[in-house]
């Protein structure tokens, strides 16, 4: 499972450097610009690690750390402090605050990773992992139709993955003379904002390439989609065969 890392720094530059440092590893990065945002994100995402700057507007890193340590749900999250101040008193204060480690700027991304690896074993993203073609998980072709079968629950990563394939899939269809697209929603059990956005994306992508799209789903799903203005006009057939014959 990806390591969740929260970077709290008012400098976009430092946040980008931290993000790049973690890029080769299987990590999910979250960013906040100050202690208030950092605390809110920490509470919501329960990160495995926090990389925390000290000097920030609104709420400093020191103040945020005090609040983290006072929260039973967050106090055990390891914190690596980043500071531009290497003075003895500053370093002593940081150590006393109970941080796992600290780094004095300037620093290299590699140095940060070395510190993190003392706390966690970072898994490198494998090439295979990066290059897996997930399109065949969702897209199939059947009798001159391209069928997109959505899974039970549409999360943001799933919707991003499918959206990433849509352009190529529709282009392949058009290049091959296909003009019929079926969106199979029968497995979907939960209507959420990611699903609505994905349905709209699919419809718009098909419309832009003059591909006719029909959808298939359960009665409950059809009724649910009608409650959203964005999908209220979507025609939902009962079966793939019904959709095919309706083209």
């Amino acid at each position, binding site marked *: 499972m990806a390591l969740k890392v929260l970077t709290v720094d008012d*400098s976009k530059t430092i946040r980008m450097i931290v993000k790049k440092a973690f890029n080769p590893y299987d990590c999910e990065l979250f960013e906040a610009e100050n202690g208030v945002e950092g605390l809110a994100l920490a509470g919501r995402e329960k990160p495995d690690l926090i990389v925390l700057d000290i000097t920030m507007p609104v709420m400093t890193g020191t103040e945020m750390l005090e609040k983290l340590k006072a929260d039973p749900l967050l106090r055990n999250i390891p914190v690596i402090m980043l500071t531009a*101040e290497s003075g003895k008193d500053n370093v002593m204060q940081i150590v006393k605050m109970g941080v796992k480690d600290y780094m004095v700027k300037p620093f290299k991304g590699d140095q940060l990773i070395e510190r993190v690896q003392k706390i966690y074993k970072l898994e490198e993203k494998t090439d295979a992992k990066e290059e897996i073609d997930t399109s065949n998980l969702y897209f199939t072709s059947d009798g001159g139709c391209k069928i997109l079968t959505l899974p039970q629950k549409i999360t943001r990563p799933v919707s991003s993955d499918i959206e990433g394939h849509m352009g190529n899939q529709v282009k392949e269809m058009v290049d091959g003379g296909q003009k019929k697209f079926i969106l199979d929603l029968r497995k979907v059990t939960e209507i959420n904002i990611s699903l609505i956005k994905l349905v709209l994306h699919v419809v718009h992508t098909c419309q832009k390439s003059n591909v006719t799209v029909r959808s298939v789903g359960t009665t409950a799903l059809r009724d649910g989609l009608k409650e959203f203005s964005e999908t209220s006009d979507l025609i939902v057939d009962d079966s793939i065969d019904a959709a095919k014959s309706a083209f």
Partner: protein
Amino acid sequence: MADINSLDFKTFLANATNDIFDTMLSMKIEVFDVSSNAISEKDRIVGSVGFAGEVIGCMNIHVGYTFAKTIAGAMLGEEPTNIEEEGVLDVVGELSNMIGGDVKSRLCDAGLMCSLSIPTTTSGSDFTIETQGWFRHERLAIRSDQHVAIIEVYVKFNNSN
């Protein structure tokens, strides 16, 4: 408590700047003395941080826009042309935070306790920065290729303490 006169601010500035350029930018710089904070490029950015406590003061870095873009590109590992103005300003702000943070640490280590402000940046082509009434004022310049930036520090005792 140390005497401000005994502190070698130029060496603090030079060491901190060399360390930053070497560690985060992989750029070699040459440090030299300079008599004013004027730089040749018209469009420029000034990054500043302040110190406040037993001593008060500020540290400014004056950098031409072209050099600032080069620095930003090196720090972010991007082509300078791909970096927007906001990113360039942020990098100059972070640069002043790191140099100023080092000077602040040297002041505190010398017993002159003070806090560091968050960095600010000023950019434009028609402005001057003049300061008066400081007990110590030190300035140096750095050069990398044909680009020059000027770094200044101003410090005085805080008489209100």
